[in-house]
């Protein structure tokens, strides 16, 4: 009976032993733990973009190692990982932005709706109209707000009349959530807008050419929380019509905006899973270590 109703001294011992166990455990070994194949939901049915065995080299240095991934139509996929893990490099391979870097070599295949985007016969300009990009720093052209949005539609010959062009500009600005703020000053320079407005202008510019996929490379890192919230709201709305791949340093942002999250580490794609799963119960220990702030 005494044993039955022993007081709880045992528990405080358990606390100590628990702490000791934690203290004894080693840190996550960054290099050794990289899986031989990406874990999680890598492939999907009816992929908009299919990436297979992609390696990217900058001269001698290999930046991306054997990455395979499907991007589903109308999904928002977030790429996260520590600085230098290759997530931006990977994003830039999706519309051949890396072509502008002479030492860059891309191996493997990347298909958009079943067509190889690295096909030599493919017109890169029309590819980039189908796969648009929004950059970290808002980069409006030194032109009016109107011309910023109209530019792509003009050079791609998407509009035959001024009325049509007006419509494209208005629709794009509305989709980007900027119309009500700029409709009375369309002729003023785009560079005169606030940072958040400039970024939404860049998004309007990207969607004016009716892309199918929008790539976003840390689109909110130069913005304040209010402007960030507006862009995130916009991403949710845009995902109804577009497929979006976003690179972000903010894990909370990835958690808020994306359907799936891909974790990159030292150039390897470690894990891709539904975002809820990645942030509540990630499959791989490296993902867990990164998102819980255990890298040191």
């Amino acid at each position: 009976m005494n044993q039955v109703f022993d007081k709880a001294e045992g528990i405080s011992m358990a606390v100590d032993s628990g702490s000791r166990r934690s203290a004894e455990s080693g840190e996550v070994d960054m290099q050794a733990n990289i899986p031989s194949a990406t874990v999680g939901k890598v492939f999907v049915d009816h992929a908009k973009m299919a990436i297979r065995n992609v390696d990217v080299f900058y001269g001698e240095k290999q930046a991306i190692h054997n990455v395979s991934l499907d991007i589903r139509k109308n999904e928002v996929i977030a790429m996260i990982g520590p600085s230098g893990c290759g997530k931006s490099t990977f994003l830039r391979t999706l519309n051949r932005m890396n072509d502008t870097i002479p030492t860059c070599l891309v191996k493997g295949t990347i298909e958009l709706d079943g067509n190889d985007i690295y096909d030599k016969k493919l017109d890169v300009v029309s590819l980039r109209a189908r796969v648009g990009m929004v950059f970290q720093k808002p980069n409006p052209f030194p032109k009016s707000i109107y011309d910023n949005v109209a530019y792509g539609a003009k050079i791609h010959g998407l509009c035959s009349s001024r009325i049509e062009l007006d419509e494209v500009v208005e629709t794009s600005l509305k989709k980007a959530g900027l119309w009500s703020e700029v409709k009375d000053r369309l002729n003023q320079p785009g560079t005169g807008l606030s940072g958040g407005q400039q970024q939404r202008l860049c998004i309007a510019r990207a969607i004016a050419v009716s892309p199918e996929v929008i790539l976003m490379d840390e689109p909110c890192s130069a913005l304040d929380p209010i402007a960030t919230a507006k862009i995130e709201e916009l991403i949710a709305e845009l995902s109804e019509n577009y497929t979006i791949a976003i690179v972000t340093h903010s894990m909370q942002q990835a958690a808020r905006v994306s359907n799936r999250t891909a974790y990159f580490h030292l150039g390897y794609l470690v894990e891709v899973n539904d975002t809820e799963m990645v942030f509540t119960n990630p499959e791989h220990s490296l993902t867990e270590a990164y998102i819980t702030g255990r890298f040191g």
Partner: protein
Amino acid sequence: MEKNLNLNQHISQKFNEDLERLRTDVLNMGGLVQNQLSDAIHSLVEKDSVLAESVLKNEDTVDHKEIAIDDICAKILARRQPTASDLRLVLAVSKMLPDLERIGDESAKIAKFAIELREHSDMKGYIEVRHIGFLVHRMLQRALDAFARFDVELAVKVVGEDKEVDTEYTTAVRELMTYMMEDSRSITRVMKVLWVLRSLERVGDHARNIAEHLLFLVKGKDVRHISYQEMKEKILD
């Protein structure tokens, strides 16, 4: 230990301390609740009303600890936006707290009956109280041990033990009902003993809940409202 959650491996030392403090505080509260339960049962079967009074007095301390730990959880959520196992730890703790507090409440109820029953010389039903008290106290101890060590196997065992408690409780109720039918003068007293047994049975449920929250914390799988067999398959696969 099933899985090391590396609570002390964050870049932020303060975050390590916050999580470790959360864990330690829960275990301290668990220890207090465990004492409350054992004292309450003791006070009843040993007719020790002084001990029963102390259980009632300590009830406030349990309540205050619940509020304080809840506050730590809210602060960690607000300031750290925890993810993965850190998030599951905070969620699991905030779900365990009401269970611990309710065990404190049940202990206080038992202590009240201990005071009311101290004058009665009839001991009918006390063997059952001791027996079921032993079982649920051990369940609580094991649930807290499992939490201290993130021990999945022990937590699974605790969930299984609840079935045994339920069976013992049903048997005890049936027996005491028969006793009351035979001796109607005992009804008032035996009803009180039945309430005590009911409280103990509830303690078993709460201990099982704590074990289930621990399984969610370590494995990231929700095992509530499924059969024991399904739970074992889900957890131990």
